[in-house]
């Protein structure tokens, strides 16, 4: 049996929601999944017994190299404010800014994982001029750098692995950890923003149950309508890298299945769309943000064609909150 992988989890400028989402892991549950990945939890702020001095002893042992640190997970943004001092988050019990702990521990870790968009890019904390000075571990928004700098590499040779999302899907992180545990996780597993391709080789659009409405540009006019949310209600599912409509959340869910737009929360800069989150900005009646890989002229031509070909069923159901016209059945087909 291989040595267990020591995992240390820290939280800084965030809501704790990625940990809470992680507790939603099923079949197997979180505890068994960590065991399957060969992970030994050195300390987790929400889950471990150790508190106060007991927890600080674990951190000190890792920082001083007395305890092997295989995986450092950070949830929440490093907080650099005010004025670069990091005093917006002094790690309790230490009198020392968390950003100092993070730099020190990252230098000891074999892998560093940014859990959620806050830790990856700064995330929601960067709204409104970023009052707390939040940044990502190795990105500040879309710009490489962040707390650890663009050249940072963890002990095993990889840059920070950005399991971005607000929050993360439990599977995104647990599959990544399992991949690390099985020794099957290299640079080829990361996309251009160093997110695990196991969930970013897809778009949120893939598997969207509103796909028929999308095909015919049969659009919802208001929340609770069943139609496509792209044309009017701000949906960016055709531009967001994630498998939300394939992997599904809390059993059968996703943002689109919950009736609301994808806000592309796995992408850097999602928090500042330049318009109201749930309104689609348009130019001459055409949405400004078009599907990834789609030339504008083709989109316009196809949209015009499909709108003219929309079946009545699709058109009527799109602006209703329940099925008003079910799909036709051929009489006598039984």
């Amino acid at each position, binding site marked *: 049996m291989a040595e267990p992988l020591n995992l240390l989890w820290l939280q800084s400028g965030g*809501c704790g929601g990625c940990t809470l989402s992680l507790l939603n892991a099923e079949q197997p549950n979180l505890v068994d999944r960590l065991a399957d990945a060969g992970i030994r939890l050195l300390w987790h702020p929400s889950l471990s017994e150790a508190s106060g001095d007991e927890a600080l002893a674990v951190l000190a042992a890792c920082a001083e190299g007395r305890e092997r640190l295989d995986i450092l997970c950070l949830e929440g943004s490093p907080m650099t404010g005010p004025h670069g001092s990091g005093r917006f988050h002094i790690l309790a*019990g230490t009198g020392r800014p968390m950003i100092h702990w993070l730099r020190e521990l990252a230098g000891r870790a074999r892998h560093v994982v940014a859990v959620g968009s806050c830790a990856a890019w700064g995330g929601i904390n960067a709204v409104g001029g970023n009052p707390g000075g939040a940044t990502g571990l190795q990105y500040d928004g879309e710009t490489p750098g962040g707390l650890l700098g663009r050249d940072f590499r963890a002990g095993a040779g990889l840059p920070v692995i950005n399991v971005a999302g607000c929050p993360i899907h439990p599977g995104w992180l647990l599959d990544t950890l399992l991949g690390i545990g099985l020794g099957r996780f290299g640079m080829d597993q990361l996309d251009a923003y160093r997110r695990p391709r196991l969930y970013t080789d897809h778009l949120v659009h893939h598997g969207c149950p509103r796909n028929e409405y999308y095909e015919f540009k049969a659009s919802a006019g208001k929340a*609770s309508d069943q139609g496509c949310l792209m044309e009017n209600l701000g949906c960016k599912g055709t531009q967001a890298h994630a498998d939300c409509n394939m992997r599904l959340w*809390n059993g*059968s869910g996703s943002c689109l299945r919950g*009736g609301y737009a994808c806000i592309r929360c796995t992408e850097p800069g999602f928090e500042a769309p330049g318009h109201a989150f749930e309104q689609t900005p348009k130019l001459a009646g055409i949405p400004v943000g078009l599907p990834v890989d789609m030339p504008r002229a083709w989109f316009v031509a196809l949209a015009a064609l499909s709108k003219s070909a929309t079946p009545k069923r699709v058109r009527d159901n799109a602006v209703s909150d329940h099925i008003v016209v079910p799909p036709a059945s051929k009489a006598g087909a039984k």
Partner: protein
Amino acid sequence: MTRERRIVGPFNRVEGDLEVRLDIEDERIAAASISASLYRGFEAMLPGRPSEDALTIVPRICGICSVSQSIAAAAALRNLAGAAATRNGLLAECLVGACENLADHLTHFYLFFMPDFARPAYAGRPWYDEAAARFRAVEGTAARDVLPARAAFMHLMGLMAGKWPHTLSLRPGGSARPLAAGDVLQLVGLVRDFRRFLEQHLFGDRLEAVTGLAGLDDLARWRRAGGGDLRRFLAIADDLGLDRAGRAGDRFLSYGAYAGPDGRLWPAGVWRDGRVAGLDVEAVSEDVSHAWLEGGTLPPLLGRTVPDPDKPGAYTWCKAPRYRGEVVETGALARQMVAGQPLVRALVAERGGSVTARVLARLLELAAVVPVMEDWARAIEPGAPWCDALALPDDGEAVGLAEAARGSLGHWLVVRQGRIARYQVVAPTTWNFSPRDGAGTPGALEQALAGLAVPGGDLTPVQHVVRSFDPCMACTVH
């Protein structure tokens, strides 16, 4: 006399970062100072954004009370519009809110609170071996029972809210996720499945038998036979005297919970000096005398949040909310005191607020709400409207109130020219973990810790008292 200063941090299993400073005299806590050590600045982020963007941004204050933040934001916008939500929309809000609150109660009890009884300090107590095997953090048998049950119950979120945390389905006009007739059947099934888990593992009895306990004699009789984790907790709590530990000021605040189409399940009010008075939202103010923030005491509608990290005498990022200038406690215990839950009232009448009372109130809410969820599910009318499109005015002021698992949550909103001009959040743990105010009066937890015995300097009792409030530090400062 021996005196010492002890600092406990990072104080974990509290949802966020927390530092507890204790002055100890002769193995007893003389004074406590509670420090929330993280500032993000949501109240500074929101001004300038379109008012409806609050629905996207505000839930991200907190990963554990995310839906409560949604409900408060939707209520504030609904009140701004002076409009109402649809009947189905209110039922959805109750169901989704209850799912979060009950899952939080479960998470708190099994994953955050009970693991402290597995600490080696208790080895040798008659209940220790069983408690350690069942409740030890991560490794105990309870975690393997609870995690799948919690995740299965959370399928309600997948069905009704898209995902949890950080849904956008709850809106001023109702819910963006209409349920069809078949969806309602799934909903009924998963609530019943959760009931089975609670009855088998937590209560060892029918939920109705638990909610029917009318006083301390009933409870004593009920405890004599049967199993389940509530009976295990009560035995431990008696042995350790937790019904005499952690009393704060015994003034309790509730904004009233689960505002369905036919009124609230539990009323709003304030318990003080043995009676309930109506809630006066105007009586809420925030003092910043001991917070690293500029300014003085203001009502939230005029509130400011400007960091002053070098302020003398300050020791936390948390403001000090006061109700008519007084400290109040909020949470399940407060909700049930205000609602007149007989067992909770009896417990507090005899011993005052305590660790035992707070934990028991939470578990009684689990027993009480699940049957009501079954009623709410059956009241849904699939063909009826789910969400009205409300026109939000370009200018105005509004308040949105909610009850999160851990207590009263308020959003105060000012809109000018269609944009947020001010957004102030007073969260449950802002109340409970508040610092001293300008008069030097300590906050609720600070009061609850003062006088606590810590024999031999062992701070394990502090762990129980702090966690009995089910704190959420992410919300506290935001």
